[in-house]
């Protein structure tokens, strides 16, 4: 172990520092950070395992860095902590940014540790589990995810369904898959041919209405920060107190990460919804208004998803999430072919991977603890300066795609949509989930139809399908019968 520390400490520290900075930058995140490693990949060829340590450190630190951006700036770094914004930012406005960050950090770190260890323990059993999930199960899993978002935590489920369908339609704008030169719903606007980027949609619908209201003076002034260390201790205690919210989030993220093809981006929202629906007697603050459980739940999903996404990547060489495509390519570049029997039999690889994961987690947590006190200072800038500053940062972040007026128009359109949805009390998260999953739903739906349309009862003949189907039905029945445990909208 000491040998590993001596050998890889510089790489670990560089990886953690580099990834953390990318996590903090709006729009960036783990994927962008990994892309930035390509020009330096050849320097790792002398010791390919150093690339394993580097990529792992970047993924973990960038994911935790994302959370800072969500809580303090109300912008998800790389999209991984989007659900954390919903309660994290209101907590920051209340002067409790340190508590939110500490609670989120503890939740993410705890679940990361649990699922990281489970990754090592469950690796031999994973193959059997993943083969139980074919196209019918994938499709039903997506339906289950949509059901949770639309029905479980929100009072207005019909509006939720409408919002989700609207989100799917928006997500399908652009090039028709595999058909060159054929575009869908672009209304003659060339900019839409490549589809709509996620950040302007997320920022416009979820963040901008709150920020604009802040600029216009409709939100309360930012509260003074109470003692930082006390808050951080409180955040850690919150995480322990609401450990089952964290664990539930971890389970959701862990399952989604382990199922190749589902991708990230939905785990934190599902975890948030499941947390919000489990009301407790001691919930003093409503969800959406700065309830610390709304931070703990999704953050539990955030890193556990990253941990289990390594399952399919390492075993089959099949990326479990978009960022894993880049990990796979970087490791292939230095000569480590994930999924190959030779690598699977290589104990050194697994030792370095486990070491890199755990060490990076530890270092990131330590850095984050010290960084919290500086990050929260941002929230103490006077409201008259802070909200316009946030507005500028968000607009800047969302207009990096072409840098032209089209980016501004798209952001403007989604701001208007966000305001209208808020006014109509439509489920904005359902809209976002529909948007994020649109391509996936189309792809899996089409593949399912092509493979199984001659077997209409396939769902009833496969145990996992049957389980998912009944779970979905039970959730709908539960949601329609018990309306008390729901929040108005978000």
């Amino acid at each position: 172990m000491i040998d590993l520390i001596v050998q890889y400490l510089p790489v670990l520290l560089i990886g953690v520092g580099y990834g953390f900075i990318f996590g903090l930058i709006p729009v960036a995140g783990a994927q962008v950070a990994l892309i930035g490693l390509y020009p330096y990949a050849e320097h790792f060829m002398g010791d390919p395992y150093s690339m394993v340590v580097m990529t792992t450190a970047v993924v973990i630190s960038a994911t935790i860095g994302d959370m800072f951006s969500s809580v303090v700036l109300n912008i998800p770094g790389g999209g991984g902590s989007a659900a954390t914004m919903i309660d994290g930012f209101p907590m920051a406005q209340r002067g409790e940014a340190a508590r939110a960050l500490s609670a989120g950090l503890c939740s993410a770190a705890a679940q990361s540790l649990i699922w990281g260890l489970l990754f090592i323990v469950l690796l031999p059993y994973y193959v059997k589990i993943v083969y139980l999930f074919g196209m019918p199960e994938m499709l039903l899993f997506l339906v289950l995810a949509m059901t949770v978002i639309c029905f479980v935590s929100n009072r207005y489920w019909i509006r939720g369904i409408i919002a989700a369908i609207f989100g799917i339609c928006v997500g399908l704008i652009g090039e028709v898959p595999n058909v060159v030169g054929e575009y869908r719903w672009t209304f003659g606007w060339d900019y839409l041919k490549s589809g709509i980027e996620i950040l302007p949609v997320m920022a416009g619908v979820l963040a901008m209405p709150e920020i604009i209201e802040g600029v216009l003076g409709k939100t309360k002034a930012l509260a003074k920060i109470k003692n930082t260390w006390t808050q951080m201790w409180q955040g850690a205690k919150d995480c322990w107190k609401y450990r089952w919210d964290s664990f539930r989030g971890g389970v959701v993220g862990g399952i989604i990460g382990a199922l190749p093809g589902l991708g990230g981006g939905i785990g934190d929202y599902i975890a948030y919804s499941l947390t919000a629906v489990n009301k407790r007697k001691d919930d003093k603050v409503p969800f959406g208004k700065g309830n610390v459980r709304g931070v703990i739940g999704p953050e539990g999903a955030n890193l556990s998803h990253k941990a289990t996404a390594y399952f399919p990547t390492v075993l089959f060489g099949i990326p479990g999430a978009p960022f894993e495509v880049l990990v796979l390519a970087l490791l292939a570049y230095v000569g480590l072919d994930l999924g190959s029997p030779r690598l699977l039999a290589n104990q050194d690889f697994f030792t370095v991977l486990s070491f890199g994961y755990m060490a990076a987690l530890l270092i990131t947590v330590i850095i984050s603890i010290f960084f919290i006190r500086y990050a929260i200072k941002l929230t103490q800038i006077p409201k008259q300066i802070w909200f316009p500053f946030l507005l500028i940062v968000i607009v800047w972040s969302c207009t990096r795609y072409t840098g032209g007026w089209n980016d501004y128009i798209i952001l403007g359109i989604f701001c208007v949509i966000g305001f209208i949805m808020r006014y109509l009390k439509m489920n904005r998260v359902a809209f976002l989930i529909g948007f994020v999953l649109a391509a996936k739903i189309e792809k899996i739906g089409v593949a399912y139809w092509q493979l199984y349309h001659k077997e209409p009862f396939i769902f009833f003949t496969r145990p996992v399908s049957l389980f998912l189907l009944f779970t979905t039905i039970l959730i709908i029945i539960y949601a329609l019968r018990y309306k008390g445990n729901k929040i108005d909208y978000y």
Partner: protein
Amino acid sequence: MKRLMLMIMTYFLVNVSFSLAKDKFTTIAPQNPNQPWLEVVNREWAKKLDAELVIKYHPGAKDIPGANAWEKEYQHDPKNIMLLHGGNAESYLLDEIEYDYRNYAYVGLQNLSQVVGKKKDSDPEKGVKIAYSSGSNPSVMSVVMMVCGPKATLDEYLKCYNEKFTYVTGLNNAEIALSFARGETNVTRNPPPKWNLEISQLPGAEFWYSHGILDLKTGKIVKDPNYPVTFEDAFEKRWGKRPSGDFYDAYLLLRNHRDVFQRVLAVKKDNPNLSKFRTTLQATIKDAESSKVFKEKLGDYPWHTGDEVMNLFAILKKQTTEKNLQTLVWWHEKAFKQKVVYKPQLAKN
């Protein structure tokens, strides 16, 4: 702590200055990251080139957007090298595109094959489920012949295809591999490095046949030394005679374009770095250590550099007849339900 920080900073600065001191070239790939061939070749080639070789990915439907962007934009930078894929060659015959193979100078290519695999426990003659991806069409045409046997007319092939084939669209490479591993599809096709490094390791995966290699001298398909059972051999073993006829001729045209140009490194015709690229790639191929890596990871396939590539063009030109093009268009529209264009000019020029 200060010493540690100093150490890290020094390490970082040394690396950065080392990188800045070197030349930097970019290979553009028309697909998503995780391209074993390019990653392996770049790594070895960079040593002889004594430069950084970074990869820029420009993915898009049928690999066309990346190649179109090469034609319009990337080729004008002398530091850019394009990796044209087999899918690009297929589209060259059948799609509306903006790039043209005749406009570029070639650094080199590896004359590759395709590996068709199946699930051990499945009988494709009872039904084939195979996933579409860019460049998969020629392999599927070969599977049609293998499963349906010798047929006199195209309509007979179409009838058999409609009865026995499910061509699953829209999946990415990872999903294609996984659906094969799960047994949702029972036949798969892959470039040799991908088959060798990934797909053959999946449970139940079994080699069926390979496309073989186009011989530069004779213009005929010869055995692939890595996977000696060619489609023609497998067909003869199953049906008692070699494949022939219009459908087979059209398949050969598509297969040869797709496989010969499966991995081509091209630059702009007047690129000042062309000779440097060629000589260093030739040196890399000859280098004992690199050659060993190529054989192990990419398979033992012939390389052609520089003007040799133009000889391959001449062979392919002979096969490009109006009849073959018409057959391909008919088949893609009727069977694969794909929108393609008939390009008679390719047979004339």
